[in-house]
């Protein structure tokens, strides 16, 4: 039964999901290969850049000091944008910074660091190599094909990211419908530390994370982001594919209008664009997870659909890390038992369900439906701006109290009271 193998485990992809799986297994003494198509790990990867650190600190207790993190987030803002106004909820809190809850990262650097950690515990990282497909033997997955080479292992880990071509190519995952994916477009804009500190009211290594909805995407779901790095800004759009194509959206032109929007332009003034990239984001939530364990194969991270977008935060990296931890646990058990079947690997599924990943995916299962609501991307921003306009635009008319102002604005708005109450309840149950 014990066929010849080159490695105990072969991991496809050196993003956070793959790297953490490999690191845990190699550290436990297993022989592990990580195959990465990028010339260097990270060179194909892109994210908005806020990494919630709770999971990765379990693996690397000194993550904040050892890893290439940019800034520690101390300020979060949600901004409703209209063509000629905006309303922001701006939250700054020293506690977030002190705890190192979330940091900004740039993936070309972070993933390189993760690969080094894998190598330090004995994993073999093979960059610049694309896996083309899976080797099957006796009805189970038994290795990978990469160019001319065929490599065999007891277990293969598909950690190949959002397109999940490995599992899809093997007929193990369907192609997701456009409403379960969003196009992320991002620029990195160089600015000095002093300007960033002044412009975003930050000191030292503090960082800011701004989420925007509304006119910045021309009303297309789901939003825009702007995050501070040490000496640059990461900013971009997340455009749900069904909505983008329904509106015949020209994504490149949308991006240009985003950079020129009255709220965004002053924040990047004087900066220099040093990179322009795009990448898909999972938007389907729990509904797109599917089966994650097969005979000889497990699927982790984005490849498994593990992302949560609530409009306030996009989370994928911490879930990728969490799934890597759970997968390593399940695979370790399978290797101990010498049972690499789906049943033998089921420990991964169980560990994932019990972990924060499984629980949070469940908690936010209704978020994708909530995010489909178009009032979020237009009417509510306008409504809020009209209320504040009534408050601050002192003219000769006698003043009214805010409640009566709000009632008047609501009467004039396309939003009905019933919408408002319903959406409020939906927000409370979904987010």
């Amino acid at each position, binding site marked *: 039964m014990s066929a010849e193998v080159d490695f105990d485990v072969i991991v496809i992809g050196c993003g956070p999901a793959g790297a953490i799986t490999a690191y845990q297994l190699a550290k436990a003494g297993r022989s592990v290969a990580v195959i990465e*198509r*990028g*010339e*260097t790990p*990270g*060179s*194909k*990867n*892109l*994210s908005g850049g806020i990494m919630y650190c709770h999971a990765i600190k379990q693996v690397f207790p000194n993550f904040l000091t050892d890893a290439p993190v940019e800034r520690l987030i101390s300020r979060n803002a949600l901004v409703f944008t209209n063509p000629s106004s905006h309303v922001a909820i701006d939250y700054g809190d020293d506690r977030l910074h002190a705890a190192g809850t979330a940091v900004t990262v*740039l*993936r*070309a*650097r*972070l*993933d390189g660091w993760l690969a080094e950690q894998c190598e330090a515990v004995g994993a073999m990282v093979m960059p*610049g*190599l*694309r896996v083309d497909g899976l080797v099957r033997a006796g009805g189970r997955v038994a290795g990978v094909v990469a*160019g001319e080479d065929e490599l065999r292992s007891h277990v293969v880990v598909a950690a190949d990211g*959002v*397109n999940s071509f490995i599992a899809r190519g093997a007929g193990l995952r369907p*192609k*997701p419908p*456009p409403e379960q*994916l969003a*196009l*992320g*477009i991002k*620029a*990195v*804009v160089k600015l000095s530390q002093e300007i960033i500190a002044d412009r975003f009211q930050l000191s030292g290594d503090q960082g800011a994370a701004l989420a925007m909805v509304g006119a910045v995407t021309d009303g297309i779901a789901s939003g825009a982001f702007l995050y501070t790095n040490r000496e*640059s800004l*990461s900013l971009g759009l997340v455009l749900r*594919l069904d909505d*983008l*194509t329904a509106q*015949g*959206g*020209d*994504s*490149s032109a949308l*991006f*240009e209008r985003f*950079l*020129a929007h009255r709220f965004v*332009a002053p924040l*990047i*003034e*004087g*900066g*220099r*664009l*040093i*990179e*322009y*990239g*795009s*990448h*898909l984001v999972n938007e389907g939530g729990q509904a797109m997870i599917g089966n994650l364990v097969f005979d000889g194969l497990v699927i982790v991270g984005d490849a498994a659909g593990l992302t949560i977008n609530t409009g306030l935060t996009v989370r994928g990296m911490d879930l990728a890390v969490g799934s890597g931890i759970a997968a390593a646990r399940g695979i370790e058990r399978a290797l101990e038992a010498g049972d690499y079947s789906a049943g033998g690997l089921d420990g991964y599924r169980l560990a994932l369900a019990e972990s924060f990943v499984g629980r949070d995916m469940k908690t936010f299962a209704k978020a994708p439906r909530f995010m489909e609501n178009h009032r979020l991307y237009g009417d509510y921003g306008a409504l809020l701006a009209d209320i504040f306009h009534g408050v601050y635009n002192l003219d000769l008319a006698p003043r009214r109290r805010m409640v009566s102002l709000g009632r008047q604005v609501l009467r004039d708005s396309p939003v009905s009271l019933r919408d408002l109450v319903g959406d409020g309840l939906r927000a409370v149950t979904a987010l």
Partner: protein
Amino acid sequence: MKTLTVTERLAANRFVLDEEQPHIVVHQELAKATGTAARIIAACPAKVYSWAADGSVAVEYAACLECGTCLAIADPGTLEWHYPSGPYGVQFREG
């Protein structure tokens, strides 16, 4: 910051071009008939696709950012798209 065209934005990136093997092939007739052509021309953030003078879809595959959006919105049979092999394609230095 001055508004940059997509070409100017892409010029900031590093690309390693695979001159031998394009990683994108459009099946012209079906792509046009299904509306896929118009869809991918609009949606691609790198403007890899455009209408050529002869009415076909031109493909500037060297500018591809490898997101997979075009494939995700393409009708079955209209587009062959895979990651470039080995070290080719876009090389993010920031990410």
